[in-house]
């Protein structure tokens, strides 16, 4: 289909276009130069509406084993959002643990076209891919988990670096993964032996390796393999008061490495890792120190904003979920995944009257407001901080100081007393919003044909019904515009019109086309023979199991 978007005000940070009135030409799902565009096409006059690349979520738990446990253990969450069948759209349910089709529709309504599932135990990757196959509209990719992997920890103890690098390549091949995700390195495995890891130099029992060693080994493996995305890290001590020191220590690990052509590390849901104080009583923000470290190092971060309300927490950080359910007294599930990891799931209600939750909310906003827009990405770590459907509110909070002030006056006073949020008068403009919601994500994840509107890019486009310089005091209309995209275009097809999904096209899953040395198969087979409950033949996922997929070549 050929399509021309006329008279849109374009915000395209990767090409340096800041609010220029432009026409965009789309042919065969790609953006093309207008001079090669001669035949007749459908023309849409946008009349000064805001045009951005399609939204890109770099960290959202939308598919996999723990998401499914969340759905099973929270029928009451499904009840609160029942979506009936409409025309071509499938029925579904869920507010924080959404069913697969609704996930695609809700993202598309906000103008998002790509979402990466950032944590899948390799053994559960098949399930994840099958779920991703069913999520409409979005393009997807999977990050397998490498944090508590027995093979890697054994090889670190043996100092067999070749085997680690080769195993990383093999596991990405076997799971059809896209990047290396590390969650609480060593911590989950140690917890399985009734030990807790509190610093980077605590040893994992039975393996004798430390989080620092695991992380160093994985970063160097990823750098040698030249993967498109860096190590995607969820630091140790998530959600513990005083954990900002661990976070800074972790950031310093990158000093040992030479800078490549992309950042060395991505720290995810930073909000949960910026806590100062030494107990919940004197819990406060440690963003200032962390922000300094982030600015001084070659890393990227996403925020993991927390918003008030009911949600479900789910992470591969088993011990953290265990401690959380001790605090809340609510239901809890843990899923031990053999030799790999142990995700936990528990529901939570973030209350604006709670001093802890109020400070957490404020920290989530401090991070993007204290860091340059080039380094930050907005996420809610869906559904841990809040469901992804809260993005429009977060965008409005970044754009409108008035909205933040109104919120601060409503929430517990600890948010003003223990963070700097009240004293920050920075307001994001649409150019910066385009950075933190799409351009940075696509660049960091190595999706070179996404997140921008240059020639040859995939025609994933969001159009919002906003003036190019919106009145920031009128935050309600900002929220409305970002929750109901005027148009969402997916690979050249119009999928959303005026906030309603009109054409639920299928999305594509990307995986790495990576090669490995065959000798690693022999080493790995020992683990399958001795420990795994499945055989290696049933472990490796074939390309034929992914309904629509694209491979990304790796030149290592």
């Amino acid at each position, binding site marked *: 289909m050929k399509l021309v978007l006329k008279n849109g005000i374009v915000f395209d940070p990767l090409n340096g276009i800041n609010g220029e009135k432009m026409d965009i030409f789309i042919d065969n799902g790609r953006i093309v130069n207008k001079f090669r565009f001669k035949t007749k096409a459908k023309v849409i006059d946008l009349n000064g509406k805001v045009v951005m690349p399609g939204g890109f979520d770099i960290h959202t738990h939308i598919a996999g084993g723990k998401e499914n446990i969340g759905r099973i253990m929270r029928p*009451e969450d499904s*009840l609160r959002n029942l979506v009936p*069948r409409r025309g071509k759209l499938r029925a579904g349910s869920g507010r924080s643990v959404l069913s697969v089709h609704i996930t695609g529709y809700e993202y598309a309504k906000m103008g998002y076209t790509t979402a990466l599932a950032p944590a899948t135990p390799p053994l559960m990757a098949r399930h994840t891919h099958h779920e991703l196959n069913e999520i409409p509209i979005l393009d997807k990719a999977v990050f397998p988990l490498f944090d508590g992997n027995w093979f890697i920890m054994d090889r670190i103890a043996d100092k067999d670096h070749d085997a680690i690098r080769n195993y990383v390549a093999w596991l990405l091949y076997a799971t059809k993964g896209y990047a290396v995700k590390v969650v609480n390195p060593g911590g989950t495995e140690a917890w399985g032996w009734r030990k807790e890891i509190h610093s980077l130099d605590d040893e994992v029992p039975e393996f004798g390796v430390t989080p620092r060693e695991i992380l160093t080994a994985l970063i160097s493996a990823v750098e040698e393999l030249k993967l498109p995305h860096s190590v995607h890290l969820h630091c140790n001590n998530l959600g513990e008061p005083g954990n900002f020191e661990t976070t800074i220590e972790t950031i310093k690990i990158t000093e040992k490495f030479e800078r490549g052509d992309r950042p060395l590390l991505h720290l995810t849901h930073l909000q949960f890792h910026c806590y100062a104080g030494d107990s919940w009583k004197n819990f406060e923000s440690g963003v200032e120190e962390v922000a300094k470290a982030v600015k001084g190092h070659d890393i990227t971060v996403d925020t993991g904003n927390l918003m008030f309300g009911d949600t479900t927490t789910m992470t591969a950080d088993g011990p953290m979920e265990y401690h959380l359910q001790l605090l809340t007294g609510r239901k809890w599930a843990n899923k031990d995944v053999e030799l790999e990891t142990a995700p936990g799931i528990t529901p939570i209600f973030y209350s604006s009257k709670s001093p802890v939750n109020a400070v957490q909310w404020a920290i989530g906003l401090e991070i993007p407001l204290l860091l340059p827009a080039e380094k930050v990405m907005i996420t809610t770590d869906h559904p841990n901080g809040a469901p992804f459907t809260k993005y429009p509110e977060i965008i409005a909070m970044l754009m409108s100081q008035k909205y933040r002030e109104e919120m601060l006056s409503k929430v517990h006073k600890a948010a003003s007393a223990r963070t700097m949020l009240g004293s920050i008068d920075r307001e994001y403009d649409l150019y910066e919003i385009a950075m933190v919601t799409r351009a940075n994500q696509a660049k960091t994840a190595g999706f070179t044909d996404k997140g921008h509107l240059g020639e040859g890019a995939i025609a994933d486009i969001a159009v919002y019904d906003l003036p190019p310089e919106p009145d920031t005091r009128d935050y309600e209309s900002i929220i409305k515009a970002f929750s109901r995209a005027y148009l969402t275009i997916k690979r050249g097809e119009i999928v959303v019109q005026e906030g309603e999904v009109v054409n639920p096209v299928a999305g594509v899953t990307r995986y790495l086309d990576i090669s490995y040395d065959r000798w690693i198969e022999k080493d790995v087979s020992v683990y399958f023979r001795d420990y795994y409950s499945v055989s290696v033949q049933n472990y490796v996922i074939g390309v034929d199991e992914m309904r629509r997929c694209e491979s990304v070549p790796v030149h290592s």
Partner: protein
Amino acid sequence: MFLFTLKDEPEVCVEVENLIPERLKGMKVGDVRKLKVKLGKYEVEVGELFEVRKNSGEEVVFEGLWLERVKRIGFGMSSGYIVVKGNAGMYAGAFMKGGRLVIEGNADRFAGMNMSGGELLIKGDAGDYLGSGYRGDDGMRGGKIVVHGNTGDEAGIKMKGGEIIVKGNAGMFFGGMMRDGIVRARSARRAGANMKGGTIVLEEVREEEILPGFSYAGKDEFEEKIYHVFEGDKAVKKSKGKLLVRNLIGED
């Protein structure tokens, strides 16, 4: 306000959470017919399934046949008055915050589920899970449920507040896992399993139906009558629940 009658027996159950007084207030009959209700996984217009008429009173009335296939009557209502002249389907009065819902026949399962206010009157029998929580959720938080007949199993499960009065008998696990509030029935089986707080008042119970987690604490006066008092359930830490029984029937 309005009178709804099903035109024909629906193939699958209809869900009518849209037809609550606060939403219908001030609407014209033609607009009400265009409101959406759920029929299985589809949404259809009210006028396709129901005969809609205006009536002079302030109440919303459901009458006629097949009402037991109409689910979610009064779901989430916070004010006004609904009358069901017949049997109501599942989830009648669920998530009610206020107002009054009267069911002149029987109510199916999960009536008054997650209720937090208002009044639910069932003149016939109620099904299982009366005044309970939805699967996975906490139970009733406030309001009042009165049942003239009997109720099924697990009424008042996980209740946190409010009042349930069953004039007839209750089924198994009456007031199970209760935290607060009061539930009453003529008799019940295995009442108060895992209760942490709140009060259960029963008129007549066989001795062997008192669960082993309850300890006898003598007799006490309640509403000017003398009751046997049991405290428990001791299976739960720091439990403060009370089980009052007027007549204990021995095994012989």
